[in-house]
């Protein structure tokens, strides 16, 4: 059977083919990517897009978690100071309940409690990045402002709503507890009990002082409860952050396996392509100059 006498065309095609596999191997090795364009592996490319999006979400959740954690810690430390202050007030109240004190001494105690009240209010107005932590969602800079007409001497400018932060997929945590639920709550009125202690100490009624003191003790219990809620948030965030950092690692390795290339495989591919290229060139050098004319000339 007659064969295609044109060797040049097929040799050219072979050279081109081996050059292409050489180039593919080189590109994969230098870019570290097996899938550079969608058609290289459409499914892997698409999955990688989703994986990258998931990584971005995990990064955001981690950042959000860190921000909430910082706020919760500031809030907790503010409330811790409040408890210390209230404990001081209780001991002042106990001291004031002693019948041997003069009215001048009680008035001095009342002044001290007034000072403690101011300290508590200053903690209640704690801010983080310029935002009041205990103003609910109102977005006011100073939630508790002096107001002589109020029974506690302070008016609450915030509201009773709270915000939740997105710290995981379909997971949000409450990041703040409104000021009125902490400082002027019916189940432990911090500002009210301190104010009534001031009034009781000024009046000198030992029964009023005693009930104000126990009200302040009640407020301590209430603030401790609130602190426990912040503590829960902190625990939840710590757990979530651990999970997110694991997730981030596993997503990165997923992306690697989807579109990345194993260096050993890439190096082997390159060697194979080089060998094939040399073989094709050697073949071309061997067969192209050959023709009957070479032999007739002798």
């Amino acid at each position, binding site marked *: 059977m007659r064969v295609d006498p044109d060797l040049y065309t097929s040799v050219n*095609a072979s050279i081109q083919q081996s050059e292409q596999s050489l180039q593919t191997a080189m590109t994969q090795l230098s870019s570290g990517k097996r899938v550079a364009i969608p058609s290289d592996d459409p499914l892997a490319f698409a999955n990688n897009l989703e994986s990258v999006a998931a990584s971005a979400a995990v990064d955001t959740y981690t950042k959000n978690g860190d921000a909430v954690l910082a706020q919760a810690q500031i809030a907790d430390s503010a409330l811790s100071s409040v408890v210390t202050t209230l404990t001081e007030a209780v001991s002042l109240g106990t001291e004031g309940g002693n019948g041997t004190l003069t009215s001048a001494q009680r008035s001095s105690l009342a002044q001290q409690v007034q000072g403690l009240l101011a300290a508590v209010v200053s903690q209640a107005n704690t801010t983080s990045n310029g935002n009041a932590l205990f103003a609910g969602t109102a977005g006011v800079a100073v939630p508790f402002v002096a107001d002589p007409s109020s029974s506690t001497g302070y008016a609450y400018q915030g509201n009773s709503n709270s*915000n939740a932060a997105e710290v995981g997929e379909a997971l949000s945590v409450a990041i703040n507890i409104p000021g009125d639920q902490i400082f002027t709550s019916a189940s432990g009125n911090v500002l009210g009990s301190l104010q009534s202690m001031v009034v009781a100490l000024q009046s000198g009624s030992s029964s009023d002082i005693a009930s104000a003191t126990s009200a302040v003790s009640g407020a301590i219990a209430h603030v401790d409860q609130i602190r426990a809620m912040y503590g829960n948030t902190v625990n939840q965030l710590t757990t979530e952050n651990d999970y997110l950092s694991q997730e981030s690692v596993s997503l990165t390795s997923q992306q690697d396996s989807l579109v990345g290339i194993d260096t050993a495989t890439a190096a082997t591919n390159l060697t194979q392509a080089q060998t094939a290229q040399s073989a094709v060139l050697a073949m071309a050098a061997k067969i192209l100059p050959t*023709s009957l004319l070479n032999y007739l000339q002798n």
Partner: protein
Amino acid sequence: MTGLNATLSLASQALSAESGALATTNNNISNVNTPGYSREVVDLSADALNGNGQNQESGVSYNGFTSVRDEVLQIGIQQKTADASSLNAQSTLWNQIQSSFSSTTGSISTSFSGLFSAISTLSTAPSDAGARQSAFSAAGNLVDAFHEAAAALNDAQTQADSGVSGLVANINQLSTQIASLDQQLASAQASGQDGGSIEDQRDELTTQLAGLVGITSTSTQTTPSVSTAGNSPLVVGSTAYALQVTEGSDGTTHVLDAQGKDITASITGGALGGALTMRDAEIPQVSGALDTLATQFAAAMNAAQTQGFDASGNQGTAMFTLPTTGSAAAGISLALTSASGLVLSSDGSSGSSGNVSNLIAVQTSALPSGQSPGATYSDYVESIGDAAASVSSRSTATNLALTQLTTQQASESGVSIDEETTNLLRFQQAYTAAAKVVSTVNDLYSTLMNMGVVTS
């Protein structure tokens, strides 16, 4: 009994036959690298009968030459060329399209992530003006990403369209050349000659024409004709029928046959078929899917916006505006004019982030098309990748089949230098032998003439 004269005339016939054969060999060698050339074999026959019908040696007769070609292979090559050119044209455009969706940064996918990350961050600090501005910018980036993707698709479509007129001009030129060759061929065949290189040229041009537009060709009939897939004639006999182009009502270039019939939809083969397939079928489908994503995503975000209050405590308004006509992805724009329009608050107070959860729920909620925006987009890119990969592998396979057919044709019709060298020696030897006969007869005549003459 054969006389010397007869022998001499036999030898001279042989000389002319062998020199004819040498000329054919020479022509083969000359055209070894001519595209489309089919090798010619010399046609010699022994004249076994003399004028009286008696069986006797009457020498060799040179009957010209015949080109070696296989018409069936030729038709196969035309068809594969049409398929391969169409797929090559499509593959080029698909590669161009998919390169616009290859980037991992600045894509619609990363812009989704960017927008939702920025909004999600606001859940921890709703009053942070900088973070609010970032989210507003991220929404703008997403609009830009949609515009870029739509522009890339539109570019590819425009490119496919702009090539149509040029391709039709090339088709008409080839048709004219084929018609003129058909005329020469008809007169050659009328005088009983082999079509030879005229037919080679015609085959070569017809294959080129098939690469531009899929054709059906009948060259073996008395009236050879070439027509497009939709049976619109390009060449009948020695007359060429020019295709025409006109701008259709949709703003694209339409192809009309010589009778003015719109044959745009019936052209699928060749580079023209490939360009038209991409322009009228593939790219509109891809654009449509992107428009659906833009429309549904914008609607979902707009709905989430209306569930709360903006920075000034007003009821939220739409985030995106969709165009009333044309491509949604190309025409989508930001409805909000400033960052304060982002709806974060659920209770109307400026420190609330209660609506953030509604906004970022769009990221994970299924759109009416069935999947979340991110998954819809990645499926979309996957479908582009699939199409590009499938066209590319079909193109590779078709080119391989074409190469096989071409090799098969070359094994039939290709000129082999070695073979021609052998033939050269063969005909040279025969020529030398015939010349020797002439010289021998000459000697015999001399002997005869000198009979009886006494030489000193």
